[in-house]
């Protein structure tokens, strides 16, 4: 038996322990039995994982649904690599995984991917995802006031040191300074607001509420929300927190594209300048107000009030000051106060766990994840509350939140439905039960990184060059809507442009070509070359004389799909070999192309 096929057998086995737990609905789970699970005084990782399992298995019992079987180890490893580091695993990584004891290998892998050995790669992937979330894929592009590269670098550093989410939020919400690295007051966190300050910060308001509080207030900008509790005043009272702030445009000369410098200025109230404000009588409240328009055209006044109804005025009264509505920076820094409100809000933790759950499962507890509220009740309120409490008690530790979710039984389930849970398909409109793992499109970034990983196409490039190449590739699919919601879309969504890119693009051409480098012997005279050495994955498989053709095909399947080909697939591969007149290396190119274009490769499953 070849080494590769032994590996396959292991990868296709399921972890029976998880199966038993999932079906019987017991609270114990893999991580609960762990000896070395991270724990501290307040939150014990194993207990949280057990609580997730208990909550979900109870809900499955209540709905009379039997969950799918646990995913095979290979599929699970592929899934976890894609979610935690943004790419599929290499064959070596799969081999290291299955070399672990079956009982503990999943926890072993999560420890590794969230630990020191993958710290940079994990941070890099999280930074990529968060940058898309925070400034969009088009943020930092031609028409953007943001500069992407330093922003992603800033996020990478933050995720590498596992900076608590509340701290990260505070840095971005309160950031001032220039987004340009060459400026003395450079502050990469300022990129968050760079494109959001038009119209007195409408986008800053809407995005901050969505991202950090999980509430969609942008519709209430113009009117009370027709269905939810949102009121128009809420939007403008929240927006008032950004009224001291503006994005100045900085550039070196006329030809230079402008970039943002986020600055705070004294705000004297809408339409009032400094002199008008100074003219107010002593004793008169130094209140800097904003106005908004009702649908009937009447103007209403707004002062800073957080979404829970707490006003800055009251907060400052409690501190013994009557100037809470002032817009003078020496007295009140409104963004600092806003960040404090957000960090204290129960919505902060709730929205974070909802988003993270959605990131790992494809569906959060609400649809969409950033429109929470009484009008849109969560599918699993108790579970969400448990996770939110644990996340807060763990000081907003994103690594641990990831760990809890990926070690849960539900995350480890197969994507294949059983007889009882075929209808658990949220893409058809039902609320998710999480009795199976739902298929979802991989992002353009995940596909890119996976192609690179599977083909070793950019071995020679530095990380920065790789990042730039990836951004260039993914940007071609992104379109900005060009409205005041900073909306954007990607055509890398399973439609024809994606298929064309996977079939015919330069990236795939390189991935499916055989490459050789001429090796120059160190001591040899000029022109004296040793044998050619294979460059990249495909060539090295083709050139490996220890492998049979069947082994080679298996290797390709393993690298792309983390599974073994079945008999029918092997039969078609053999026909390809015949069609290539026995030239195995050429046939492997065909096999490799087909694998990279398959639904099984481009979907998370």
């Amino acid at each position: 038996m070849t080494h590769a096929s032994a590996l396959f057998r292991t990868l296709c086995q399921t972890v029976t322990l998880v199966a038993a737990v999932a079906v019987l609905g017991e609270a114990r789970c893999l991580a609960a039995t762990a000896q070395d699970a991270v724990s501290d005084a307040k939150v014990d990782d194993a207990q949280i994982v057990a609580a997730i399992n208990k909550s979900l298995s109870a809900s499955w019992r209540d709905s009379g649904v039997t969950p799918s079987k646990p995913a095979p180890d290979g599929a699970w490893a592929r899934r976890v690599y894609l979610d935690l580091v943004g790419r599929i695993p290499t064959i070596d990584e799969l081999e290291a995984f299955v070399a672990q004891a079956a009982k503990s290998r999943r926890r072993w892998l999560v420890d590794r991917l969230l630990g020191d050995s993958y710290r940079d790669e994990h941070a890099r992937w999280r930074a990529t995802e968060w940058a898309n979330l925070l400034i969009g894929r088009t943020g930092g592009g031609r028409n953007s006031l943001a500069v992407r590269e330093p922003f992603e670098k800033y996020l990478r550093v933050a995720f590498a040191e596992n900076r608590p989410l509340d701290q990260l939020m505070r840095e971005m919400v309160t950031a001032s300074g220039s987004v340009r690295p060459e400026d003395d007051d450079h502050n990469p966190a300022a990129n968050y607001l760079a494109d959001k300050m038009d119209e007195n910060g409408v986008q800053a308001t809407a995005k901050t509420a969505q991202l950090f509080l999980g509430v969609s207030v942008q519709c209430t900008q113009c009117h009370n929300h027709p269905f939810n509790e949102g009121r128009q005043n809420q939007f403008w009272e929240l927006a008032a927190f950004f009224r001291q702030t503006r994005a100045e445009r900085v550039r070196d000369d006329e030809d230079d594209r402008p970039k943002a410098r986020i600055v705070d200025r004294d705000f004297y109230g809408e339409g009032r300048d400094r002199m008008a404000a100074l003219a107010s009588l002593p004793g008169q409240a130094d209140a800097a107000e904003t106005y908004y328009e009702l649908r009937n055209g009447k103007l209403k006044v707004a002062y800073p009030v957080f979404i829970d109804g707490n006003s800055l005025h009251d907060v400052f009264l409690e501190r013994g000051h009557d100037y809470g509505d002032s817009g003078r920076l020496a007295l009140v820094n409104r963004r600092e106060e806003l960040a404090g409100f957000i960090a204290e809000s129960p919505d902060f933790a709730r929205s974070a766990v909802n988003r993270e759950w959605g990131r790992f499962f494809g569906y959060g507890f609400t649809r969409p994840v950033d429109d929470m509220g009484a009008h849109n009740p969560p599918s699993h309120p108790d579970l969400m509350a448990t996770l939110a409490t644990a996340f807060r008690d763990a000081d907003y530790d994103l690594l641990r939140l990831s760990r809890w979710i990926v070690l849960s039984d539900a995350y480890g389930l197969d994507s294949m439905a059983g007889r009882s849970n075929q209808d658990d398909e949220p893409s058809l409109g039902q609320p998710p039960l999480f009795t199976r793992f739902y298929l979802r499109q991989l992002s353009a970034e995940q596909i890119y990184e996976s192609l690179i990983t599977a083909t070793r196409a950019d071995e020679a490039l530095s990380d920065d060059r790789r990042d730039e190449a990836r951004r260039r590739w993914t940007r071609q699919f992104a379109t900005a809507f060009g409205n005041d919601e900073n909306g954007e879309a990607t055509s890398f969504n399973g439609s024809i442009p994606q298929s064309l890119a996977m079939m015919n693009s330069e990236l795939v051409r390189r991935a499916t070509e055989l490459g050789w480098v001429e090796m120059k012997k160190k001591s040899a005279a000029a022109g004296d070359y040793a044998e050619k050495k294979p460059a990249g994955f495909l060539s090295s498989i083709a050139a490996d004389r220890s492998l049979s053709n069947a082994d080679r095909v298996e290797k390709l399947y393993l690298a792309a799909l983390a599974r073994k080909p079945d008999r029918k697939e092997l039969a078609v591969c053999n026909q390809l070999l015949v069609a290539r007149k026995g030239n195995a290396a050429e046939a492997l190119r065909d096999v490799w192309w087909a694998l990279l274009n398959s639904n099984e490769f481009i979907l998370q499953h």
Partner: protein
Amino acid sequence: MHSGMTRRHFLDHMAGAAAFGAASFALGRTVEAAASQLSRDHKSCILLWMSGGPPTIDIWDMKPGVATGGPLRPIRTTGDVEITERLPLVAEQMKHLSVIRSMSTREADHTRGAYYLRTGYVPNPNVVHPSYGSVIAHEMEPKIAGLEIPPFVSIGGPSEGPGFLGMAYAPLQVDQSGRVRDVQALVEKERMDERLALLAEIEGRFAKERRGPAAGEHAKVLERTVSLMRSDQMKAFDVASEPTKSRERYGDSGFGRSCLLARRLVESGVPFVEVDFGGWDLHDDCFTRLDQKLPELDRGMSALVSDLEERGLLDQTVIVWMGEFGRTPRINGDAGRDHYARAWSAVVGGGGLQGGLGIGETSADGSTVESKPHSAEDLMATVCQAMGLSLQTNFTSTNGRPMKIAGGGAPISELFA
């Protein structure tokens, strides 16, 4: 029923294609068979999508001499309506176009409004509705068997998606020059077919394993992709091959090129084309920016209408001009207008619809509709009826709910006189 597709599928052809002689392996509709016989027994629709929400009070429903009216003046047209002086060429074509001045919708947020106007449904967390283009592509399917390029093309913007109809009805998004990336296969046809045989095997295996609809939809998209790659009809995208005179007529602008491309696509039998013309989110400096935007609109839109007419295609092509909402009659402190959904205008014409009409009216300041109000559903029903689609069509959404085409809207009767 949307699920009962009649076309033969990629997988049917490919799965188990054990002996792949190239002949046994051709895709459902071959270039040779179809290219010559592109008979047009169906109508098409071109949606001119004014992304951002245009100030229709400055364009189609002018209020001269009123505080909300703005600086622009109305001019007479060949139809029974007056429109802005900045659209003199469109004014010549107004006998073919009607202005619906009684649009009254309730979504004044870009994302929600764009969804509502283009699907006929307000956003709902549990179901994603198909957009105009996807509905029409789906319903026209029996009539466009010879079409090898996608039935729904979106130029310059992403449009809305196919929702529960599935990715096979998603728009093909192209830029304003009509460029479709990566259409050239990496290997010759025979070898590609051989590769596709293995791909079909892998696809089929995964798709039949009860993992959800995404696995199977991918195969349909692959089929469309291969069909497009091999089709002569792709030359419809080659706007650069148009004579200089024709390109000049549409104007040297993104919108002009998009309109020209739309005409070429419709001519090739594509049943739905969306042209995205953005930049209407005029919260500030509305009138200076209108002075820049309206001439581009004027040139492209007028050329499209007159060109279609000259080619005898106007009666078979419904034209719709709309954004996600209009803008406030009140001019704000930044000389701009904000989002406003309660009273605004859309324009339709062609496809046998009555032209030259002004339908409905708004109050003196433009803030309310004073005639029978029309919704996004009504507008969509009007277009569907003009296209010859039955308004009794029901879709079964993926969650099992029956869903009326065009959200159950009622067509605007004046347009069908």
